[in-house]
């Protein structure tokens, strides 16, 4: 791929980030649905398990993490879908920029519109599920890092299934096994803090996963889009 010397390396990143944020702002209802889903499912847990505070507190961190994972999974499906339908994905593929950078811009926009709001809402859910007070800061930190990993890995799955008509279900099948390390260390961060143990090590591992995903996932997604978008 030839990069013209006059073009800035990050021009694709910033342009696609701004575009996707603008689109998200104009479709506010659509963007809000993962967060509404996140809050609604949390009502099912006391109904399905038990309303007792002591028992809820035990499962709170894990449940919030699983719901965040599902909410991300629901929304990551649409990462490339509308671009594929209206043809702007083709335009992205033929731009002279390095393809991973526009993709990273799109993923960043996705995280800013789903992962970040989910993270910010999570203390409210923690309160509803009587999470012990030591768990709030670790929950915020781990969700902020973890949902970024989920968006990045999800982008690879979304790229692999973009041209399939029923890609959503397949996408979750492909991506769910890859999400398991994230959920292990995400919940561990919170449970360490609740148990009064130093919770920075699992958070650091989440950070390492995030660093690896930032480096590798946009490239894998770019390779996948080159294959799938033309078929």
């Amino acid at each position, binding site marked *: 791929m030839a990069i013209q010397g006059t073009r800035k390396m990050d021009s694709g990143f910033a342009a696609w980030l701004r575009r996707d944020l603008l689109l998200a702002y104009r479709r506010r209802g659509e963007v809000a649905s993962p967060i509404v889903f996140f809050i609604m499912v949390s009502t099912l847990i006391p109904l399905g398990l038990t309303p007792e505070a002591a028992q809820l507190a035990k499962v709170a961190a894990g449940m919030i993490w699983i719901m965040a994972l599902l909410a991300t999974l629901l929304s990551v499906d649409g990462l490339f879908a509308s671009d594929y339908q209206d043809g702007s994905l083709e335009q992205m593929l033929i731009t002279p920029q390095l393809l991973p950078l526009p993709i990273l811009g799109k993923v960043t926009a996705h995280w800013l519109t789903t992962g970040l709001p989910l993270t910010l809402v999570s203390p409210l859910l923690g309160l509803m599920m009587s999470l012990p007070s030591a768990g709030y800061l670790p929950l915020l930190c781990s969700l902020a890092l973890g949902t970024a990993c989920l968006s990045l890995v999800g982008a690879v799955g979304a790229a692999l299934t973009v041209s399939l008509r029923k890609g959503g279900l397949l996408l979750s*099948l492909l991506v*769910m096994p*890859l999400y*398991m390390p994230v959920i*292990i260390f995400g919940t561990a961060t919170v449970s360490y803090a609740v148990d009064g143990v130093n919770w920075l090590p699992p958070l650091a591992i989440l950070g390492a996963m995030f660093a690896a995903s930032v480096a*590798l996932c946009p490239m894998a997604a770019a390779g*996948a889009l080159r*294959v799938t978008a033309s078929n």
Partner: protein
Amino acid sequence: MSRLSNWLPTNWQWFNRLGSPRWFYHRSERWLPWLSLAALLVLATGLVWGLAFAPEDAKQGNSFRIIYIHVPAAFLAQSGYFIMAIAGAIGLIWKMKISYMVMKAAAPIGAALTFIALFTGAVWGKPTWGAYWVWDARITSMLILLFLYAGVMALQYAYHSVDAASKASAILALVGTVNIPIINKSVDWWYTLHQPATIKLTSAPSMHMDMFMPLLVMIVGFYLFYAVALILHTRNEILRRERKTSWVRELATAKAGG
């Protein structure tokens, strides 16, 4: 293929030729009887040795003998994923048709072996741990491996275009390969965090030589069996994908005539 032959040394021509489905189909016909015979002999030796002659386990009695199926299957299930991913990578890098076919053939075999490993593990778990299923680190890793295989197979079948199916699942297999060590390590770590007190793993590092030798024979036998199964599946896939070429048609008319 021409670009490849430019920089490969001449004695690497076999690699080049291997890329031709036709050459592989005819050549593998000569390999198959020998490989099948070897697999049969080694598996029979290992099974008879392991099931009849190896000494009984002091704690588990005869129930430990399922190890001679369980461990080789688990072994091959894991290497099978790497074999599949390497085949996919060769396809992506050198654009070899045949390696995509090998990749497609490897997925169901690997998934079947993973299932066998999980199933024999459950059967073995009942007398040993008192439960068919426990959330042990190795069992959980194997289950996730089964999901990874399922993902590759599902993606393979989701595309109508052979080219897109091959390349997409090759990328997925490579992503999975990067993730397998991370998943295994995370699950190990998770297990040490939640280790239930009731389960004591009967670890086998201090396995007696009389028990270990048949296991080694069985692992070699499973590798041979895997090779036979992979070649058979690949040959099927070659015929399916190349059905419009003249050599496959000639083959079919020759079979029908004879």
